[in-house]
């Protein structure tokens, strides 16, 4: 019975979505942070998801390689390459010699949508765990009724 790997899979999804929610939080927190040069400006961080297939030994390993469970993992965290916003604010104390400040390239609407998607998938993983739990418990009661 492969109950354990179901918990693994749901757990990996929860971990991945937590990292994603973390990046959304940092991006939203830095949506309005300004910098004195383009290089120092905040760039939105995005996680890259990848599938981690794990083969299971069902009958000694020979043909077990086909039966792979599909965990999810964070392959990388990349910075968004969208253009940095340059605003003319000569009164700003961190403005450069020509009076420009540089704002991060966070798209707030996109981040909000990302946040909804992440929390929905997290919720789904939690539901999977609850459901698997009740399946396992009723299996334990087999023959007692």
């Amino acid at each position: 019975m492969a109950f354990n790997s179901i918990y693994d899979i749901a757990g990996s999804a929860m971990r991945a979505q937590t990292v994603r929610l973390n990046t959304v939080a940092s991006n939203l927190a830095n949506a309005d942070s300004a910098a004195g040069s383009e290089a120092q400006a905040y760039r939105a961080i995005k996680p890259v998801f990848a599938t981690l297939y794990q083969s299971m030994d069902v009958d000694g390993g020979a043909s077990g390689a086909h039966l792979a469970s599909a965990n999810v993992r964070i392959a990388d965290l990349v910075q968004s390459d969208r253009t940095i916003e340059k605003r003319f604010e000569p009164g700003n104390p961190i403005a450069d010699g020509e009076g420009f400040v540089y704002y991060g390239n966070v798209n707030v609407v996109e981040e909000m949508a990302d946040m909804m998607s992440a929390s929905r998938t997290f919720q789904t993983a939690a539901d999977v765990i609850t459901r698997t739990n009740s399946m396992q418990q009723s299996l334990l009661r087999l023959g007692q009724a």
Partner: protein
Amino acid sequence: MGISVDKALGIHQYALAMRVERSRVIAGNLANVDTPGYLARDYDFKTALRGLASDIQGMSSQQRLPELSLDSDLRYRVPMQPSEDGNTSELGVEQTQFASNAMDFESSLTFLNMKLAGIKKAIEGQ
């Protein structure tokens, strides 16, 4: 004549094992719902179980029960709406499949419980 408990339980013990396997595969689909390029998979449940059922029926009482092998029955899901990043796992579809699979697990379990109760009655002679 001896009672073969394995045979008395019939197809339901296999159905139960398959339900767990299937929920593992669907849990994987659900976990990878946001992974670009992920191809959702599922078991062809009916074909696998039908093959097994005919195997069991054609058996003599001395033979051992067949092993459950699922490898060849894992197929790729055809998405209702293709997505841009190539992911074929759709949250709604996978959620309903997971829920109905869990319910089918409970029914298989109920059948098994009833079979076991029947065997118990036969043994006790009531």
